[in-house]
């Protein structure tokens, strides 16, 4: 219990990294998010409920807590000891966009949560109670944004395809199709498809005092609005370049690893492989939807590929590392 509590505290602090670094939760942080400030109605009640109409930092804490819980359950289901989970939170924070999602007052986080929670049902030997809690989280994500239904649809189609044993072919087909699509229509690198969420939407968008975001903050969290004016984002010195580099390198490693493990060697880690395939499949399905419907924020799901990758890395190297570590 003590270690779980410790993990939650660490999880909350680490996953709120960019909010703390910015000195205020990030607002409208996606570069490509040129959409008008139109939060769906269910996110506003969520904001009010979790902030206790007291502080906007509480919203970030609740988001971080939800994400920490989901990640914790994932790692536990892959038999990673509780004490070691904390180490996996570091690469997740600094090499994927999860901390950015948690640190932002935006519903993009709930798309990732929906994907992670549906993916959990692919795993075997998981507790019934956890599954029920995950069902509740899925319900919450649907309430906050009904478009999350797309993840449930991808989950069922994935389950069907995996039974037919065509999933690898379909994923290869999707990758090829999207590479061709991007090459023809956008002239960008093929890696755009998989890395787009890592590379592009992390730049901070400057918010001005006459924007709707600020007016909302000023009306509901008046006493904290001064902190917003002192934030890096508002003062335009939020530099996340170091984050871009880390994410680019990690995305490249994850992608190469996926190619090697899944398509060339076909290893026997079924839970890990099926999860990787599911996250990859969902990302590939969602990208065209984004392009057609212009829901740019859906880019923010492919960081989930990092979760099975970390599990793999942990099981492969942790014991060797500890054995080889000789300290005077």
């Amino acid at each position, binding site marked *: 219990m003590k270690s779980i509590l410790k993990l939650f505290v660490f999880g909350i602090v680490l996953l709120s990294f960019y909010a703390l670094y910015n000195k205020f939760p990030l607002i409208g942080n996606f570069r490509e998010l040129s959409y008008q400030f139109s939060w769906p109605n269910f996110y506003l009640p969520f904001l009010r409920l979790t902030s206790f109409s007291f502080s906007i930092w509480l919203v970030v804490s609740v988001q971080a807590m939800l994400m920490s819980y989901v990640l914790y359950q994932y790692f536990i289901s892959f038999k990673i000891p509780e004490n070691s989970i904390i180490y996996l939170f570091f690469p997740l924070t600094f090499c994927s966009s999860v901390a950015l999602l948690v640190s932002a007052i935006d519903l993009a986080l709930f798309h990732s949560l929906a994907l992670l929670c549906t993916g959990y049902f692919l795993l075997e030997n998981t507790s019934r109670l956890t599954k029920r809690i995950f069902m509740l989280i899925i319900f919450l994500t649907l309430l906050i944004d009904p478009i999350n239904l797309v993840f449930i649809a991808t989950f069922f189609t994935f389950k069907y395809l995996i039974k037919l044993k065509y999933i690898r072919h379909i994923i290869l087909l999707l990758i090829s199709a999207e590479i061709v699509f991007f090459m023809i229509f956008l002239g960008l690198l093929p890696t755009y498809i998989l890395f787009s969420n890592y590379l592009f939407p992390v730049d901070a968008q400057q918010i001005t005092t006459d924007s709707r975001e600020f007016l909302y903050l000023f009306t509901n969290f008046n*006493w904290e609005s001064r902190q917003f004016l002192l934030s890096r984002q508002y003062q335009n010195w939020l530099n996340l370049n170091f984050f871009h580099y880390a994410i680019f390198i990690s995305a490249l490693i994850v992608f190469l690893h996926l190619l090697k493990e899944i398509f060339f060697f076909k290893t026997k880690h079924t839970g890990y492989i099926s999860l990787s395939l599911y996250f990859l499949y969902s990302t590939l399905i969602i990208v065209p939807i984004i392009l057609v419907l212009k829901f740019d924020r859906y880019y923010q799901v492919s960081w989930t590929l990092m979760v099975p990758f970390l599990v793999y890395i942990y099981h492969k190297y942790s014991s060797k590392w500890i054995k080889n570590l000789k300290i005077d």
Partner: protein
Amino acid sequence: MDKKPQNRLTKLLFIFLGAVVLMWLAIYNGYPLVFNHDSGVYLENAFDVYVSPDRPVMYSLFIKLVSRGYSFWLIPIAQALLLSCVLSLFFEGRTKSSAFIFSISFLSLFMGLSFEVSWLMPDVFAGVLLCCLILLLFFKLRWYHKLFLYPMVIFCTTVHNSNSYIAIGTLFLSALFLIPIYLKNRSTSYISLWKRMVGILATVIFAIFLNAGIHKSLGGNFESSRGGSVFLFSNLIEMGIVDEFLDQRCTDHKYSLCVYKDSLPNNFLWDGNSPINKTDGWKHPEEYQLIIKDILLTPEYTLKVGYQSVIYTLKQLINFDVVDIAGVGERVKKAVFMHIPREHYPLMTSREAQHRLDISWLNYFNIFFFFAAVLFNISILSSKAVSQQIKMITVFIFLSLIVNASICSVFSGVHPRYQGRIAWLIILPFFLIFQNQIQTILTKFCHYGINNFNALIKRGKNNF
């Protein structure tokens, strides 16, 4: 001390080399770095010997004593030499000096330590102070080391408002956390640790009184910290608490500040139109003290102050990058021109003055290695292979980071430079653990290099 004069000379050479590496940023900049307003005040006070209401006078006296009106370059040189001396004690009697040079180069190039050393600010002494505390608490030192370190503690405590609080806070928390660990392990070392803590605490208290005495003798009040209530009041404005409080109380209480309640700027301390300048608040902070007292004694606001203090501490813990390079302020230009006119040209042609000093790469490394070190330190705390001494040092560093973040952010505000001045300490346990390995690798590398170089020369000769 080493009896062989050769060893002594080598050691001195390495300390000097360490100091040069530590101030590479000043050399690269072409002049010591300056901080807009603050460096100017320190330089002015140095030559006018004036006790300003917002900061202690000791750093100004240090500037006067070291620069001697000859050159401001002597200040980063002195800072670098002092830090190099203190850091060399971590490696004293344990290993050869190349590990020391490697560590100091790493800290200087990748952890922003050179920035702290290279600018005309007392920030570097917070790190020096904590290094001295670590050495005095956890290392077996000779009498002449102590003779050097205790005066250093006194000096470092007196140069900045926050340093005495950081020292006392860290000692208090260490007593709370470390002694129970010793007791749990049934170690008797806690008695010696306790004695050392009391000794250091007495030194810090002596330094506080000494500072107050110096201020009194130079025409100020008998106070060690300057402008504490004004800084806290300014931070309560930033937290959004003063706005609410004045909205509620200005109807029945008659604070003179009520006139300005709708126009309190975020930059309360340094804004030209701030009420602090209109009401001469630096010299007469009585009303600010009264408002702070009223806020803290009202449960509704106490809760808010407590809540924001936790958030501010967390924010400060993560904000430690080097961001305060923004040209040279008028006050600095004037002070340099007035007191050492021949250095006005080097100042104006420095990279910083011409906005050509881009060290964003340093921040990437700084952030990366900081969190890598945090991860490493967490792992050594749970490792059985690491000695208790190293574990205690690691815990002490974690505590000092938290205390520093808490004191600076709550009493002054979240500014990256407050945490940056001591963030580099986080990597010390790594160097202490792996110093022998570093030594071996460096030696092998050097041998490999020399052998290849010899082979190359031989080949060259044969070709001729």
